[in-house]
């Protein structure tokens, strides 16, 4: 198509002046003096120096100059001037502390080296929540986040603390004098001393309100339990007492009330007659659901009706009063009745846990638990848990107040409501004074007048009361890196309390805590991290005030028509609610179920994907591509949401993880994924959802690290049922492959061509992975990442399967309804074609079932004692040790990658790039960040480009602890130390130790009937072995 547009460079050109025309003729406005240096042909041809000569001289002089300039660098060594008594350079110190970010609570040990925290470990002296999940493990990197705000700001200008505080004080006073409300919006506060400071702060204003806010709200649950407990708190769950656990949409192993029940749960997963049984009824395949013995898919909106039907059926069996009949299809009702029967049989040893943030569902679950007599056994109503404090009603009234202009001053602390709370951002403008106590200029702080940087928790003091009988302390392990202030101290300043928070806290401890618990000393609690105190809770009788009939009708009303789509919002084990969205370790950690990293996405069922023609597909590079869609709930829309097909997803539902889609969190986390909070309003699911604007092709790339999702009937995860385990001979369910030899049938440990290593005279390090206890949470993966300085490679590289995780947790789906059925199918195959033909049969086995059984299997270097990698290395860079380890000498490796190709377990990782220097990785690789590199473990090499690396079984810890034993002059005790993964594992799935020590736990594990080696038949004789997974399929 012709155009009449004319493009011009200057007015002269447009006007067509002669100068412009002349200039247009010449490419260069000025003459270039080419002649001066090339024009004299004569001089050039007569010159003795030809071009070749010139290059020769250049090359020689460069080489000579380089050689002459060679000299060793001066390395300085700068000791302390006055060395602190506690520090010996090279020796780590450990400090007990507490992690609480409003979402996760953990009692921790902080490992410091030369005064800088480098690792967070679980505290085995914890009085409550001694385990660490992936987020707590990763939290140490958030300290060294260079996106943190480094000095106080007012209106975009840096200011001193003195100025900014006096300005804020006077502005707040003005707001107060004008009669408007002053509001403090915080995350859940469980610190008794902080509550006292907030009360003091309230006294400064005539009209003050403190509002607690949880991004994933539990407000309606709290309302239910307020009626029962008389206190706004949730009960403690005693999962260890439960023979049967029924979770209805409750992801209680990963993200629930904040109470860590995974250890109690897995302690009862030891096979035998005491093994618990777990039934999960849920929408989306959660971490908890994937560990269940039986899983039933229902929509989130049906959870209420499911609970109602459970209630009614159990009431019928127990002779109680039934409520209104549940609004559920018959086939679902039948399934629920089976569960109800099991619950009734389990009596008071059962536990029903409801998910979501729904009053009716929680009330019905509480009703069932009470009816079964679980109060006092599995539901502990005497020690309330305070970890969730958010109040939806108060938050809603705050937003209304903001919008109507009634809020004169707003201080936020530890929350980011402009990101996670719909309607908040619109109200900010009408608030007079806004101050954010924040760690960075995030979505909220950027819209606020004052930005006050607060200390990271590793720089802070703190006290916590997670339950009514536990008191814990947090202590700083490093001086503030930036010009930040402890959040409490800012509030103290506003409240007119003088002195440091540390002094205040000690005063509070002496005055209040020791008053109630005189046996506690400050130093003891500080040393141990936490202590049990006399129970502060006084029981009350109030159950009657819950209207169960109203709950029943509300539950029935929730059920929508079958065709309607709905969205279920969930938290990933890595990202949670997004508090650490700039933490690259958590982005790189693959989701335990979908195995996708660096993303969130709409999970849908295979059936829905086929109906809408939006199925995910692997491309020729072995990476998944998917469509993007627009999701719509009411008048809220979210564009560009990638769609990922997820087995186990209930049809008609979409799962969407929160915590992603941050825009102002930092280089690593900005614009990763989409913000699910934009569609959310209080509850954890939204009905009447629509999928629209499906993209024309698969325009979204997923960084999914697993493509083979089924085991094809092989014994990779060996699995059996509890009944078989208890009755049958081990050879029947844990078969050792045998080979025909001239000496008769022999196992793979006997049939070999190799000479054995001497493993008798020293240690022999072995590791046992109990597949019954591994819940797949990924804490070990993050722990390994930071212990071993594993590089973060980013989404594009993960997509190319170049992820560097030394430890991965493989997740397998069954193709049939169970893994046993898969095996049966393989056994029944005959011939290539036909109904039982292997060609078609194996094709079918590649596809995961619509509601698959799931198995997790952590795989790291198996430390084969007949290692295939060692024999193919041309330079002897990977060699075996007497202690059963497969060593990897990085400085010897020349990068042929033969070893990785010959590794049957695919656990070797190759450094394709110089991750610590290549600018492509600068945005997210901690070792490239000025502050981030401080987190590196100084005892482990940071590997260079072109070398292979892999799990070393934490050889730095082995060597360190052997030396500690030698220094003390005594043998290594079993349990004296363990690997990073085993230490991080909250459920005790990983046992590490010396099998030459016959008293060790790992020796017992090795001789357990459940023990087997991965791919045993290939005769690699690994030092790592697995314990057969046992499911409790017996209906109680």
């Amino acid at each position, binding site marked *: 198509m012709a155009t009449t547009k004319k493009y011009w460079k200057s007015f002269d050109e447009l006007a067509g002046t002669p100068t412009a025309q002349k200039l247009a003729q010449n490419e260069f406005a000025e003459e270039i003096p080419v002649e001066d240096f090339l024009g004299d042909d004569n001089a050039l041809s007569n010159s003795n120096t030809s071009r070749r000569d010139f290059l020769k001289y250049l090359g020689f002089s460069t080489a000579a100059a380089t050689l002459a300039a060679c000299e060793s660098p001066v*390395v300085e060594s700068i000791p302390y001037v*006055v060395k602190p008594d506690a520090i010996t350079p*090279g020796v780590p110190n450990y400090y007990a502390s507490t992690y609480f970010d409003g979402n996760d609570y953990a009692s921790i040990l902080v490992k410091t080296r030369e005064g800088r925290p480098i690792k967070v470990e679980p505290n085995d002296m914890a009085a409550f929540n001694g385990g660490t999940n992936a987020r707590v493990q990763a939290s140490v990197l958030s300290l060294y986040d260079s996106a943190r705000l480094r000095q106080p700001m007012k209106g975009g200008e840096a200011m001193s603390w003195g100025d900014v505080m006096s300005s804020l004080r006077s502005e707040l006073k003005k707001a107060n004098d004008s009669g408007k409300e002053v509001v403090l919006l915080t995350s859940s506060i469980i610190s008794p001393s902080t509550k006292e400071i907030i009360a003091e702060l309230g006294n400064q204003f005539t009209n003050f309100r403190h509002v607690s806010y949880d991004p994933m709200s539990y407000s309606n649950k709290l309302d239910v339990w307020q009626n029962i407990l008389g206190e706004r708190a949730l009960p403690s769950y005693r999962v260890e007492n439960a023979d049967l656990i029924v979770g209805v949409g409750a992801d209680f192993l990963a993200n629930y009330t904040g109470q860590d029940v995974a250890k109690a749960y897995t302690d009862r997963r030891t096979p035998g007659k005491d093994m618990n049984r777990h039934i999960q009824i849920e929408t989306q395949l959660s971490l908890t659901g994937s560990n269940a013995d039986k899983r039933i898919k229902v929509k989130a909106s049906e959870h209420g009706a499911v609970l109602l039907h459970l209630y009614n059926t159990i009431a019928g069996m127990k002779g109680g009063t039934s409520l209104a009949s549940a609004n559920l299809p018959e086939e679902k009702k039948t399934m629920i009745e089976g569960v109800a029967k099991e619950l009734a049989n389990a009596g008071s040893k059962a536990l029903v846990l409801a998910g979501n943030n729904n009053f009716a569902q929680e009330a019905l679950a509480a009703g069932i638990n009470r009816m079964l007599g679980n109060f006092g056994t599995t539901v502990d109503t005497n020690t309330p848990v305070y970890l969730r404090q958010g109040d939806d009603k108060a938050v809603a009234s705050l937003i209304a107040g903001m919008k109507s202009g009634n809020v004169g001053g707003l201080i936020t602390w530890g929350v980011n409501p402009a990101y996670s709370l719909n309607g908040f951002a619109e109200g900010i403008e009408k608030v007079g004074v806004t101050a954010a106590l924040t760690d960075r200029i995030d979505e909220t702080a950027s819209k606020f007048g004052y930005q006050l940087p607060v200390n990271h928790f590793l720089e802070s003091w703190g006290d916590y009361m997670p339950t009514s009988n536990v008191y814990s302390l947090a202590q700083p392990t490093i001086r503030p890196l930036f010009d930040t202030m402890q959040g409490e101290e800012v509030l103290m300043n506003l409240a007119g309390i003088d002195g440091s928070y540390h002094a205040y806290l000690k005063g509070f401890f002496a005055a209040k805590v020791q008053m109630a618990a005189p046996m506690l000393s400050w130093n003891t609690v500080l040393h141990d991290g936490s202590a049990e105190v006399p129970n502060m809770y006084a029981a009350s009788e109030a159950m009657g005030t819950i209207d169960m009939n109203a709950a029943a009708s509300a539950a029935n009303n929730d059920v929508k028509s079958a065709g309607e789509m709905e969205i279920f919002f969930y938290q990933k084990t890595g990202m949670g609610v997004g508090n650490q969205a700039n933490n690259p370790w958590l982005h790189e950690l693959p989701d335990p179920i979908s195995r996708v990293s660096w993303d969130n996405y709409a999970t849908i069922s295979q059936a829905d994907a086929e109906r809408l023609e939006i199925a995910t597909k692997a491309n020729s590079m072995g990476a998944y591509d998917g469509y993007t869609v627009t999701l719509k709930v009411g008048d809220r829309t979210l564009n560009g949401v990638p769609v990922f097909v997820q087995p186990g997803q209930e049809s008609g539902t979409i799962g969407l993880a929160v915590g992603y889609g941050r825009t102002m969190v930092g280089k690593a986390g900005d614009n990763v994924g989409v913000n699910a909070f934009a569609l959310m309003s209080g509850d954890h699911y939204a009905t009447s959802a629509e999928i629209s604007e499906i993209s024309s092709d698969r325009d979204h790339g997923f960084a999914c690290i697993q493509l083979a999702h089924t085991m094809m009937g092989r014994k990779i995860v060996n699995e059996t049922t509890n009944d078989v385990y208890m009755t049958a001979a081990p050879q029947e369910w844990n078969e050792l492959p045998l080979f025909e030899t001239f000496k008769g049938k022999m196992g793979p440990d006997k049939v070999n061509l190799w000479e054995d290593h001497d493993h008798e005279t020293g240690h022999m390090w072995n590791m046992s992975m109990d597949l019954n206890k591994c819940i797949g949470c990924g804490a070990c993966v993050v722990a390994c990442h930071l212990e071993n300085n594993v590089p973060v490679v980013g989404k594009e590289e993960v997509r190319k399967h170049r992820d560097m995780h030394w430890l991965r947790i493989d997740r397998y789906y069954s193709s049939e309804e169970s893994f046993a059925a898969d095996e049966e199918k393989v056994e029944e195959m005959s011939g290539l074609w036909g109904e039982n033909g292997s060609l078609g049969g194996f094709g079918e086995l590649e596809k995961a079932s619509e509601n698959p059984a799931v198995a997790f299997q952590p795989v790291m270097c198996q430390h084969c004692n007949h290692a295939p990698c060692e024999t193919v290395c041309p330079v002897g860079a990977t060699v075996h040790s007497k202690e059963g380890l497969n060593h990897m000498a990085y400085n010897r490796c020349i990068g042929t990658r033969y070893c990785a190709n010959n590794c049957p377990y695919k656990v070797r990782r190759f450094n394709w790039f110089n991750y610590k220097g290549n600018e492509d990785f600068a945005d997210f690789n901690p070792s490239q960040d000025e502050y981030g590199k401080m987190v590196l473990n100084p005892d482990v*090499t940071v590997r260079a480009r072109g070398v292979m690396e892999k799990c070393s079984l934490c050889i730095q810890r082995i060597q360190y602890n052997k030396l500690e034993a030698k220094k003390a002059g005594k043998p290594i005790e079993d349990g004296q130390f363990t690997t990073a993964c085993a230490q991080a594992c909250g459920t005790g799935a990983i046992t590490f130790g010396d099998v*030459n020590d016959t008293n060790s736990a790992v020796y017992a594990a090795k001789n357990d009937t459940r023990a087997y080696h991965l791919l045993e038949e290939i005769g690699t004789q690994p030092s790592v072995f697995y314990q057969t997974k046992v499911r409790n399929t017996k209906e109680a």
Partner: protein
Amino acid sequence: MFRGHLCVKFANRSTESYHLRSLMKNLYRFHIRLIPLMLSIFAMGFAANAQSIEGDAAAGEKLFKTYCASCHKLDSKAIGPALGGVTDRRETDWLYSWIKNNATFRASGNSDAIAIFEEYNGSVMPQFEYLSDEEIGNILAYTANPPAKPIVVSDGPVVAGGEADNSGMQMWAMIILGAIFLVLVFILATVRNTLRVVKGEEPITVVEDASNYAKFLRKNTGFMTVLTIVVAVAFLNVTYWYLMDVGVEGGKGIEASYMPPHPEPGQEAQYGEQPIAFSHKLHAGENQIDCNYCHSSARHSKTSGIPSANVCMNCHMYVNGSEITDEAGNPKYGGERSPEIQKIYDAVGWDADKLAYIEGYEEKPIRWVRIHNLPDLAYFNHAQHVTAGQVECQTCHGPVEEMEVMYQYSSLTMGWCINCHRETEVKVNTNGYYEPQHDKLVEKYHGENITVEKIGGLECGKCHY
């Protein structure tokens, strides 16, 4: 018995007890090796106006060093007053009473005693009731009349002068030899040509000669190849040693490398400037301070640790100079008020005149130049060798006690490590750690030495991870 000496009130600092403990340890271990230093302070001077005090000054010197020198000097204030000529200032009886039990003496109300006690801020001097009158007399005789004895640190074998010109001499010798060689060649060529002329043949010029050789070489390619290889190998050899000389592999400090590893006899290693001219020879050699006293973390940690300045101050609170002189009689270590020791004071903020730390002083770290640099890919742990392996420091670091300037004694290459691991026996009998393995090891290697190699000391992963 030394414990009593140190009941002294230090300047009010948080590390006070640390100082006290460390100092006591030091004194226990080394029987006050510091004292020779103190001695130097009074080397000259007092004899002239000395009052005659009965007693054996030589015996008194020993006693003084043992009991007094940690707090007193002869010519200047330390923790206590200067004692040179104290017999002029005080009655002998007064001195006896004070020395034996100053507490009761003060309690008796002696105003002078109380005054001196208060002048020194109530620093408590221990009681010496166990010293006989004769011994005290000897000490006093010594303070009044110290035997003059200039102290010179022996410098090892003295080498004749002109050593420094050695290389120049060699160069000249080479030039002269070369000239002689050329003359010889010229003579030979002339003689040959003369012979040719005598025989009636044409004389050959040097140029023609050379072209003949060139022709020969062109014809004999085999010889040419061998020659080329020899030259190339020689060249590569020279290049290799040149590069080794750069010392990157040893990671040496300033400009020098471990090649050549040891200074020539009689010469000191020259590695450029350390921020403080610290002499291991003086500290570890003359004063026989144990390595672990300053490098205390070597026993506990992977690093031996350069001592922090507060460790230096344990002694240098009292020792602020040295009168040790060299051959020519010049102060060898900076003299009475050593500017080098002053650098420590500048780092920590110590006022050498007031004998007190300066309030609110901003500490200035000392930036030492690191001599021993292992590459990051090798993990080395001092505690493993010092505590578990019971290896002497000198085994790897050489005669540190003879080094004025520290240098890298061993190559620190992997071959060097491996050799030692092959030869060194493990303390399987004495360390309880090896108890569970001991019998198995003995059974397997009966009769043989159980070396580090045999327990896996050559495996890659023991040092590289």
